C-alpha cells in the first residue's frame, strides 16, 4: 500500500462542496462534527483548502451555476482523492434531473470511476454518512475498482 494511501486512511481531510443543494445534506455533514457523532475523534477533519483534501464530500443536484465549479475543484484536488456523493441529489439528481437549470449528474460530470461512494438519502442520516466514509476508506485499502453504495450488505465488512 502506497504511503499516500496509508496517510489518507489514518486521518482523511475532507473538503465539502455544495452544488445546488437544499443544504439539508450539508447541515447533516456538519452534524457529524458535533458532539453526538464527533467524527473528529476518528481524525476526520473538514479543511478549507482543496489542495489539502483527501476526500471530497459533494452534495447538490448539480445546478448549472455550481456544476462548473465542481469540475474545476475536482481537477485541482490532489490525487488520490476519494469522491463521496452525499444525498440523493448528488447520487442521481432526484427530480431535478428534468430541470432546465441542472446539468448532468455528478458521476457523469466527473471522469468515469471518480465517484467512490454513493450515500443516498434525503438527507442521509449522519450514521449513514459515517458508514459511507468508512466504506470508502475500506475500498481504498482493498484497492477495488467498483463503487459501493452505503447500506449494501457485504460479508467482508
Amino acid at each position, binding site marked *: 500500500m502506497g504511503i499516500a494511501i496509508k496517510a489518507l486512511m489514518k486521518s482523511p481531510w475532507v473538503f465539502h462542496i455544495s452544488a445546488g443543494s437544499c443544504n439539508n445534506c450539508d447541515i*447533516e455533514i456538519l452534524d457529524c462534527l458535533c458532539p453526538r457523532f464527533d467524527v473528529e475523534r476518528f481524525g476526520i477533519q473538514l479543511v478549507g483548502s*482543496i489542495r489539502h483534501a483527501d476526500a471530497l464530500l459533494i452534495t447538490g443536484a448539480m445546478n448549472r451555476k455550481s456544476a462548473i465549479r465542481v469540475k474545476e475543484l475536482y481537477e485541482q484536488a490532489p490525487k488520490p482523492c476519494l469522491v463521496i456523493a452525499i444525498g440523493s441529489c448528488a447520487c442521481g439528481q432526484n*427530480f431535478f434531473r428534468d430541470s432546465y437549470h441542472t446539468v448532468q449528474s455528478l458521476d457523469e460530470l466527473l471522469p468515469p470511476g471518480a465517484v467512490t461512494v454513493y450515500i443516498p438519502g434525503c438527507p442521509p442520516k449522519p450514521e449513514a454518512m459515517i458508514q459511507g466514509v468508512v466504506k470508502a476508506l475500506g475500498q481504498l485499502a482493498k484497492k477495488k475498482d467498483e463503487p459501493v453504495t452505503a447500506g449494501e450488505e457485504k460479508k467482508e465488512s
Partner: protein
Amino acid sequence: MGRKDREETVSDNKERIKSIVPIGPYHPLQEEPELFRLHVEGEKVVDVDVDIGWNHRGIEKLAESRSWDQVTFLVERICGICSNSHPLAYVQAVEDCAGVQVPERALYIRTIVAELERLHSHLLWIGLAGHFLGYNTVFMWGWKYREPVLDIFEEITGNRNHYAMMKPGGVRRDVDPEYFPHIRKQLDEIEKQITMVKGAVLDDPVLHARLKGVGVLTREKAIEYAAVGPVSRASGVPSDIRRNHPYAAYDRVEWQVITCESGDVFDKAVVRILECFETIKIIRQCLDNIPNGEIDARLKEVPPGEGIGVAEAPRGEVFHYVRSDGTNLPIRHKVRAPTYMNLPTCKATVVGQSITDATIILAAIDPCYCCTERISVIDADTHKQVMTGRDLVRLSQEKTLRLRKGLGL
C-alpha cells in the same frame, strides 16, 4: 494576503484548524465567483454586490409538471432548514384556491411541526453566530441541543429533516399522544439550556461591545426593503405572519411577537433567542389542547382559480401563489422565500462597516448558511481580490479576542 501566507497558516496551525470549525463550502481560489463581493477601502466596506442563483434549480417550472400533491414534496426541498414552512405555505395556497376548511386537529399538528422547526433553526443560527464570533463552545452547544429536536421529528414524522407532514387539506400523518410526555421532557431540558444562553448573551460585555451598534438596519430601511422575519422585528417592525395573517392554530394559543428597537446584530440575536421561549410556550399549549378528530379534509379536486398561502418560517414570511385551471397540475406556482427580501438589506447594513464585522452582519440576516461563506473582499481602487470568506471569519474571531482582552477578561 497572498495565497502563500494562507497555506503557511494552514499547515503551521493544525491545532488552529481543529478549533475553528469550518462551515459550508469553501472556495478560496481567486477565480471563484462569490456570493457577496465586498468592495473595500482599507478596512471599510464601501459597497457590496450580491450574486445569487447558486441554488436555482428551476422549482417553479418543475411544479407545472407535477400533481398538486406531488408539488408538496418538491417544495420541501427548496430549503433544508425551512423544510416545513414551504409546504405549509403551499398547501395553504391550494386550500385558499379550493376554499377548503382544514380540520382542527390538523391545524394543531401543523403548528407543532412548524414551531419545532423554528426551534431547531434558531438553535442552528445561534451556533453559527457563535462560530463567527469565536465562541466555538456556543457552536457546539447550539448544534448539540438541536439533536433532541431532530429526534422528536424522527419519532413523530419518520425523518430528522424533510418531514413530509403537509398535504393539501390537512396533514399526512397523525401524531401519537404517547410521544407527548417525551416531547414535553425534551422541551423542558432545552428551555433550561436556552435560559442559560440568554443570560450569557444578554449580560456578556464582550458581546455588547462586539455587536451593539453593528450592522444597524433602521426601521425606515426595513420597511423600504420590505424585510421580513426576525430581521425586520429587530428593527422595531412588529410584522409576524403568525399574528398578522393567522394560520394553523396560532390564534388559538397565547404567545407574543418579539421585537427590538435598534436593528443591530445584537437585537437580531436577542429576537431569535427570545422567540425560542415563545416557541416552546406554543408547542406546550398545542400538546395540552389538541382536539381529537380528523386530520385530512380529503381534498379531491382543485377548481379553477388562484390562491395565496403565507407562513412565518424561521427566517420570515414564505409566500406561495398558485393558479389552477381545474386540472390535476398547477399552471403556475410562484415561490418567494424570506431570504429573497432580506438579502438586499445587506446594502444598508454592511456598507460603511468594518470588514471585521462583515461576516456577523451577513450571518445576522440568516440566509442559507453556505451563502455567507462565499464572500470575497475586493479593493475598491485596484479591483483585486484581497481576502476570502475564511479570512473574514478569522478576522471576526480575532476582533472578539481583542475586545475581550481590552475589557480585561
